[in-house]
């Protein structure tokens, strides 16, 4: 049986590595690079005991616990930069590794199957389970590589508080978390019939795992144990170095892997376990408009993003009450943090939150525009352009949809934060302030949307660069102050020009200028799109 069902696995493994080598390389360099560069920065940021003490107080605040996981004892922070580093970086890096694994596995399993590539491979002299095994081997090697390189890298930096065992534990937590979500994705690849369904279900589990852990970490330890991400943050890495989390994650990952193999073995190629239902004979009048079509093609995506953002912002809203009490308790601490007395600490916290949430709600808006390019690559735009539809109308529909989506996303961010915050806080933040603080980010979002339109119109080969820019903006918001970037580096992020309501004053001028820039970029994109060759 072994030779029959696994024949050719070795060759296919090499083949898949070749296929994905560029993606894997970029992910590994990105992940390890950020980990190491942030780690290098930490000792100089927290040079004095005082600053560590202040930071440790911040870490104890429930909002931080919800966002980053349970912290360490206060003296741990004071004695070990490692603890500080792990608390701030571990969870989000682990999530990034999970995202990498989900995308890689989703693409190489159901994605390849949907596109008919596996059919061709299976027609060769290879076993029934060979392709699936090859994918699993690739994802295992990738994650192990990540674990080892991260471990070696961190250990070799020679930072006080980051020892060899801790460094390797840190790396392996990342690796096994990635592995778990990779093999989970392999299970979904068997259950659903589409690659979209596969990645969507996997991301949904990732998001739910994050929230269960967030609520659990703040209110009930037992709840956190349900979530794999709860295990990820419970190793006390660099201080206690508990390896059991790694073991549990690994065992569950293997379990998922076996389930995936079993399901793969008993199903027909091309089929899934969640059956597709019969569709409509006619298109609705709304679908027959170009805007309706654009919306319909991305409906599921947009709804998923709305739900995700709403849950995310309302869970932050849920913390606001605890946060308020916490801030009241530690008035003493306020001496350490720059306090602009007019505003409560909660309000200051909201400005940071809004910046991050706006960056996240930017993603669906950008994806809406990128759909135009995606459709071109799949030879779908020839369906429009061989008919009486102008290029301006198609790009315009997507642009309009992107603007609408940006507005909807920001509304749901504000709504989630405000409605739940209002329920749990004594001194709630007003409806007007919350919504204003969200909507001020719209011009910045539009600039990035305009930038994508410009890329799609003028240099369609490089539309992918927009993700680099978004990641850059995220790094500036999230780590800019921490890494002490020079001013010009911060100024490259369009989000830096947005007034942080309520702490900053409203700056209408900046918003108008940004909107104008967005318009100019959009117009450039439209002009280019009307002039260039359409590939398909």
């Amino acid at each position, binding site marked *: 049986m072994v030779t029959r069902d696994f024949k050719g696995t070795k060759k296919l493994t090499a083949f898949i590595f070749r296929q994905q080598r560029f993606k894997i390389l970029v992910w590994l360099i990105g992940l390890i690079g950020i980990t190491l560069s942030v780690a290098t920065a930490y000792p100089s940021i927290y040079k004095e005991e005082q600053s560590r003490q202040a930071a440790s107080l911040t870490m104890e605040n429930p909002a931080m616990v919800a966002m980053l996981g349970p912290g360490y004892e206060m003296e741990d922070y004071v004695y070990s930069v490692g603890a500080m580093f792990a608390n701030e970086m571990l969870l989000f890096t682990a999530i990034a590794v999970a995202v990498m694994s989900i995308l890689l596995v989703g693409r190489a399993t159901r994605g390849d199957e949907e596109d008919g590539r596996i059919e061709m491979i299976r027609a060769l002299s290879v076993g029934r389970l060979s392709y699936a095994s090859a994918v699993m081997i690739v994802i295992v090697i990738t994650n192990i590589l990540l674990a080892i390189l991260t471990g070696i890298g961190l250990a070799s930096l020679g930072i006080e508080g980051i020892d060899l065992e801790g460094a390797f534990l840190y790396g392996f937590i990342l690796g096994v978390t990635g592995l778990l979500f990779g093999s989970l994705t392999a299970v979904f690849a068997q259950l659903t019939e589409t690659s979209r369904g596969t990645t969507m279900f996997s991301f949904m589990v990732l998001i739910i795992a994050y929230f269960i852990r967030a609520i659990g970490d703040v209110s009930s330890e037992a709840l956190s144990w349900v979530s794999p991400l709860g295990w990820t943050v419970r190793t006390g890495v660099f201080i206690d170095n508990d390896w059991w989390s790694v073991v549990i994650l690994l065992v569950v990952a293997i379990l998922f892997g076996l389930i995936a193999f079993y399901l793969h073995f008993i199903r027909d190629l091309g089929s899934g376990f969640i059956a597709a239902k019969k569709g409509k004979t006619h298109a609705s009048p709304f679908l027959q408009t170009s805007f309706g079509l654009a919306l319909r093609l991305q409906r599921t995506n947009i709804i998923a993003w709305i739900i995700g953002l709403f849950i995310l912002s309302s869970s932050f809203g849920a913390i606001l009450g605890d946060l308020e009490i916490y801030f009241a308790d530690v008035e003493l601490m306020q001496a350490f943090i720059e306090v602009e007395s007019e505003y409560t600490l909660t309000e200051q916290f909201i400005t940071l939150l809004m910046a991050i949430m706006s960056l996240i709600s930017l993603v669906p808006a950008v994806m809406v525009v990128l759909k135009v390019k995606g459709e071109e690559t799949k030879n779908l735009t020839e*369906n429009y352009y061989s008919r009486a539809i102008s290029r301006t109308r198609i790009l315009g529909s997507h642009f309009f949809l992107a603007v609408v989506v940006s507005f909807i996303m920001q509304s749901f961010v504000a709504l989630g934060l405000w409605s739940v915050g209002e329920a749990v806080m004594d001194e709630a933040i007003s409806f007007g302030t919350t919504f204003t603080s969200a909507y001020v980010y719209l011009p910045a979002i539009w600039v990035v949307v305009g930038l994508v339109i410009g890329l799609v119109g003028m240099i369609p080969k490089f539309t992918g660069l927009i993700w680099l820019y978004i990641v850059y903006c995220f790094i500036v918001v999230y780590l800019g102050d921490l890494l002490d970037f020079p001013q010009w580096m911060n100024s490259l992020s369009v989000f830096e020009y947005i007034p942080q309501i309520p702490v900053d004053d409203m700056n209408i001028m900046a918003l108008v200028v940004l909107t104008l820039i967005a318009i100019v970029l959009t117009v450039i994109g439209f002009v280019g799109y009307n002039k260039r060759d359409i590939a398909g």
Partner: protein
Amino acid sequence: MPIIEASHLTKRFGKFTALDGVDLEVNEGEVYGFIGPNGAGKSTTIRILLGMIKATEGKARIFGKDVWADAVDIHKRIAYVPGDVNLWPNLTGGEVIDLFMTMNGSTNQAKREELIKKFNFDPTKKSRTYSKGNRQKVALIAAFAFDADLYILDEPTSGLDPLMENIFQECVLDAKRAGKSVLLSSHILSEVEKLCDRVGIIRHGKIIETGTLDELRHLTRTHLTIKTKEQLTSLNKLKGIHNLEEKDSELTFQVDTEEMDTVIRYIAEFGILKLESAPPTLEDLFMRHYLGTENSKEEGAL
């Protein structure tokens, strides 16, 4: 006025020249066969005609309008079927047909239902589940349900079964009877022979031959099989004889159309017992042109 008139169309992608001065004319009520090997430039020409890519040099007009500048206007009267139909996986076939029809501003529901029946197509399934032939049907139904003045068909029957191919040919002939024009790019030469009034052959981005099938046949050879009373000698010394073979005292060979007269006169002297002639097929024409360079080298050496 011709429906399509293209002159000196040239398209370069970087250093690669896909089209090198293509001239093309399709008249009203005419079915024009556009044939050529893979990569000869058929689809590139069609994409230029559809205004999706811009010709590097040359001009093309459809209905007297510029194909690039007035694309949207032109497309109101055009139906297009690509050889490789790509559909949105999460829409049903029925939804896509409706979409395609409204994009052109047509709403002939009766025709739609009739064609769905004719092509034996299930419109309720999601597009991702359709086979190649079924995806092709989506485009064909949408195209023929639309009352266009010009049908541009780029290898439209790839993946269709012979029954469906017949139905497709009926659709084209119906369109022709209604006075519509058709540009049909195809590899199925029997189909082109059956449907087309005129044919253009493209190779390496150049139209190398164009005209009615009869006109083109003059340029090629006729198959002859003969048996004579007396031993036929030194036939191979005559001009314009090719592939001479002897089998069971019968001779088969091909003869250049322009040498036909001389050859027949010569053979007649030997007393003809049997004479069979087969007209040159498009296949022969096609082969001769496709293998053009190789053949001419061969013949030069002989």
